């Protein structure tokens, strides 16, 4: 159940007949032959419960009842919490005091569970009625970005409430195109899961993602540029896994490679870049737009990246350090 949005934009060329490039640093799921899979796994069962009974409950039951299920998750996920705490400590994340880590890791796990349940809410057409936005701050920054008519990139990190916030914004007249990684990671399935549940899960994700473009789509970058040049809005998670065109920079105290596709889009469209932070859950969430980033012009592509990458990283890093318990990526950092 990993977050599927990603910043990654695949890059490069292939000779005719070559298979598509793999992204560095991303291990492709091993795919044992169907016959060698077990008939049914524990994950199959959990996914079945999630995609059927829980999804029905999300549509017809009270949200309070749904969220009470989230309290069960810390019991099952103690190992994950400990792992997240270790990542927070070993990541040399300046700004997170050691004493705060256990509490943050516990809240991180609870928020991850709530995010999964919020996904269930989003999967129903009636979901906009169930979304309760407690406030939007900094809307003037977003409006200012749009007023230039060159499109807006909403710069985000993987926060738990991002999907509900995007759905809410679309419902109130701010639709956006999201970059999404639809790479199937189905190595946990048994035969039942792979044959029955996996297609259902993809339908489910399609329903909750809204308007999106797959990073594997050969037209991905062109679609994003088209949207921006039409004055539209694009959402990019800048903390996604890196593509083949990357630039290194320090992130949360450790070196990390960032996809540079976003900088090509900014250069070619002249769009505004507005940071967006989404916090909370579907029954009470808030959206915070930050001031437009000052884009530093530069004559060449590499100079442009060098001039602007630090501000992009700093922006999402601050969001994460201010709200570490709501950032989803601790397990993958």
């Amino acid at each position, binding site marked *: 159940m990993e977050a599927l949005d990603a910043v990654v*934009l*695949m*890059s*490069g*060329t*292939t*000779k*005719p007949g*070559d298979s*598509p*490039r793999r992204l560095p640093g991303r291990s492709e799921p091993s795919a044992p032959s169907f016959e060698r899979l077990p008939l049914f796994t524990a994950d199959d069962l959990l996914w079945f419960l999630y995609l059927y009974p829980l999804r029905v409950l999300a549509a017809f039951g009270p949200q309070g009842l749904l969220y009470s299920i989230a309290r069960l998750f810390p019991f099952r996920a103690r190992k994950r919490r400990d792992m997240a705490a270790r990542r927070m400590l070993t990541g040399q994340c300046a700004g997170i005091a050691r004493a705060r880590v256990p509490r943050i890791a516990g809240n991180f796990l609870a928020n991850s569970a709530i995010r999964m349940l919020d996904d269930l809410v989003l999967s129903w057409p009636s979901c906009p009625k169930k979304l309760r936005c407690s406030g939007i701050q900094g809307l003037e920054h977003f409006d200012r970005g749009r007023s230039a008519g060159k499109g807006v990139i909403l710069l985000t990190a993987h926060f738990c409430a991002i999907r509900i916030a995007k759905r809410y914004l679309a419902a109130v007249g701010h639709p956006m195109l999201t970059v999404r990684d639809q790479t199937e990671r189905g190595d946990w399935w048994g035969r039942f899961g792979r044959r029955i549940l996996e297609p259902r899960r993809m339908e489910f994700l399609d329903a909750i993602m809204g308007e999106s473009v797959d*990073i594997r*789509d*050969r*037209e*991905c*970058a*062109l*679609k994003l*540029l*088209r*949207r921006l*040049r*039409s004055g539209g809005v694009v959402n990019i998670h800048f903390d996604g896994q890196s*593509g*083949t*065109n990357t630039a290194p920079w320090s992130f949360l105290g450790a070196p990390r490679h960032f996809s540079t*596709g976003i900088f*090509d*889009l900014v*250069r*070619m469209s002249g769009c505004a870049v507005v940071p967006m932070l989404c916090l909370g859950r579907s029954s009470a969430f808030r959206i915070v737009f930050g001031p437009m980033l000052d884009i530093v012009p530069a004559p060449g*592509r590499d100079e442009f990246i060098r001039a602007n990458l630090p501000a992009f990283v700093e922006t999402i890093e601050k969001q994460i350090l201010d709200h570490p318990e709501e950032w989803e990526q601790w397990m993958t950092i």
Partner: protein
Amino acid sequence: MDDYLSRTGAAGNPNDLARMREPPGQPDILSRIRAIFVESLQLNLPEDQWRGVTRLSEIAGVDSMAALAFVAAVEKEFHIVIEPELLELDFIEDLPRLSAYVEARYKV
């Protein structure tokens, strides 16, 4: 077939073959666009491998970021901005169409 061979020469020089495939119109811009593609993506291919092609896929497979890099290079070379509705791979890969479009815009 005999006529084809007589025009291409007995040795069947690949460069001559490539020239034969050159579609009518905008040969200069078409050639420049092909060269831009090869240069912008640093393909390091000899000219005889891409002279005369009419689709980018005949030179190399183009993925998302390669397409963007190519569009950026074409726009920079010809000082144009391609309209949003034309930012489709089918159009970008079709070199005669792209060439005709660039020529029309470039003259303005």
